[in-house]
């Protein structure tokens, strides 16, 4: 492998890995606070993509406004889902909430098929933010730089929010114990809603970036990134925000370099993702950066 080919693969790996990381952060944040794997996260990503799509093409809004509206709509939808599908089950066993999350995911996908149709649509790429960069023989989209930047900025922002702000402190308190936190005058409902606002906005940003990178959107578009990013989040240690970032990059880089070094195995990319997941969990059951949580009796 020549140097140039290696660099090209590195650029491909960064672009895929940072996308995985971006979406995985949303998964892990909601889990870290509520101990709930929000399976609808992947479908919020799809909703965001469609809102942005219609904003740009049907209502001919500027791209940044469409993206902003997409984030707001997705955040509202995320909070409503929590109110309707998760909050009534707060005292139920955790598995019930999980099943409810899967139900919401199916509901969104199939509503999408009925309302919009299953035929994929072509997502517009605004020229202001997407252009081709050529350095020697290496060429990549501007997104290869933009997406990691956004991922890092959001990572720092979310970490700051959780660790340094008042609402973040409340989130951490709630994540320890709902009841005790509410006895300490923390408005649990408000904190949970705030968590979903942030989590869903992250899904929206992820969805928009995903659609810019792979500009074909359909109602089931969230399934594949959802699964991969869930793996990334678990690999990095679900609940750990830097872990999600790390997991995303390992997965993206791994997939790209598997094909680069062993082209004949290129059909087994997805299998590869699960194989690394199994290996990491065998040796470190809580994920790479996951903490060992001791359950109190």
């Amino acid at each position: 492998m020549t140097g140039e080919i290696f660099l090209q693969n590195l650029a491909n790996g960064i672009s895929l890995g940072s996308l995985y990381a971006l979406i995985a952060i949303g998964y892990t944040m909601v889990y870290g606070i509520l101990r709930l794997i929000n399976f609808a996260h992947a479908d919020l990503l799809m909703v965001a993509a469609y809102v942005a799509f219609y904003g740009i093409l049907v209502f001919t809004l500027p791209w940044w406004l469409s993206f902003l509206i997409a984030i707001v709509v997705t955040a509202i939808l995320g909070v409503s889902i929590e109110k309707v599908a998760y909050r009534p089950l707060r005292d139920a066993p955790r598995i019930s909430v999980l099943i409810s999350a899967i139900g919401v995911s199916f509901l969104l996908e199939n509503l999408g098929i009925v309302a919009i149709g299953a035929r994929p649509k072509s997502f517009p790429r605004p020229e202001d933010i997407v252009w081709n960069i050529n350095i020697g023989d290496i060429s990549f989209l501007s997104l290869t730089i933009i997406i990691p930047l956004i991922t890092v900025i959001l990572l720092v922002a979310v970490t700051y929010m959780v660790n340094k702000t008042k609402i973040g402190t409340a989130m951490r308190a709630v994540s320890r114990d709902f009841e005790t936190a509410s006895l300490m005058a923390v408005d649990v409902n408000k904190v949970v809603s705030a968590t979903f606002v942030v989590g869903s906005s992250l899904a929206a940003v992820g969805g928009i970036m995903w659609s810019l990178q792979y500009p074909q959107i359909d109602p089931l578009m969230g399934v594949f990134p959802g699964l991969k990013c869930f793996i990334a989040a678990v690999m990095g240690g679900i609940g750990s925000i830097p872990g999600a970032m790390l997991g995303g990059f390992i997965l993206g880089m791994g997939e790209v370099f598997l094909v680069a070094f062993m082209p004949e195995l290129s059909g087994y990319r997805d299998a590869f993702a699960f194989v690394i997941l199994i290996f990491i969990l065998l040796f470190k059951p809580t994920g790479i950066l996951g903490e060992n949580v001791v359950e109190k009796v």
Partner: protein
Amino acid sequence: MFKKKYFTLIALLLVAAMALAGCGGGGAEKKEAAKDSASDVIKIGVFEPLTGTNAAGGEMTVEGIKLANQLFPEVNGKKVELVIVDNKSEKQEAANAVERLVSKDKVNVIIGSYGSSLSMAGGPIAKEAGIPVIGCSPTNPAVTLGNDYYFRVCFIDPFQGTVMANYAVEKLGAKTAAIIQDVQQDYSVGLSNYFEKAFKKLTNNENAIVAKVNYNTGDKDFSSQLTTVKAKNPDVIFAPGNFLECGILVEKARELGITVPILGGDTWEAEEFLSRVKNTKDIYFSTHFDADHPVTEMSTKFMEEYKKAYPGKQVNAFGALGFDAYILALDAIKRAGSADPQAIRDALAATKDFQGATGIITLDANGDATKTAIIKKVVDGKFAYEGKVEPK
């Protein structure tokens, strides 16, 4: 209080949605049940992908079938009813769809499907039930092989692969090629193999295929496969597969600075593919039919009627093949003189010099048609006629 009201509202909405969906399905079934009792109706079952990755291909085919049904609604003095079932672009669903057509709807003959894998999933069930099937565009040889009840109105991949290899070597002057295939599609893997064989033979070079890389249906990231191919520096790339994946793949190849010609198969003739690649050039593929080069009287008639029925849509090969499958079915029923599936099968097997919209169809011992292949390329954001290749 607010919470409760909100919850009830959503619940009501959901119930309404379900009731609506339920009504739609129930209504259709009742209508079909009523048809069952009338014996003066001939039923033609259609299984095509109307949702999922192949939705556009199935839709084009069904448009052709419906058009033919409007033009020729009767045979032997009986009315022809179409029973259209969506196979959702999934193999399991394709098997279910055929099962439904033979056991529940009790159709006399079946048409379908776009996609070789889908056709192969449905084939054995129709064979078991003794119902003949006419394929519109499945090109993999295994679709009809060993199945006396499966016929088709299109050419097959050994021919298509050879045509493209010939074109690459003779017209494009290629000495090396790379293959990018979808390992989940029998169509893609089969066509790649025939291309590879023909290409090696034509170039007299066992190592003429410098790279062969794989992907899976539904993949969206092809950057690493393409980087691998780019490193090998082939003269042409052969990448047969679904129009959705290939659209992204070809677009990405150009973004990565790969400028060599990219070749594909008949599935590329879809708007979804064109919309991705219209700003690029040197894209070639083989297909079944060209609107500017009608071959029979039926082609001219098909095109006139198609433009009337679907104004604003491009006349395409899949619509034409769907059209042909339907009129061939009717012709076979006429020749059989009855609607008995076995008699229709025997009449189909004896098809000779049938005038279809896509050409003159004679079915061989396997039930395959031997027909002219058309080569098209992408020029100025449109599919343009490049040439045609007669079967030997």
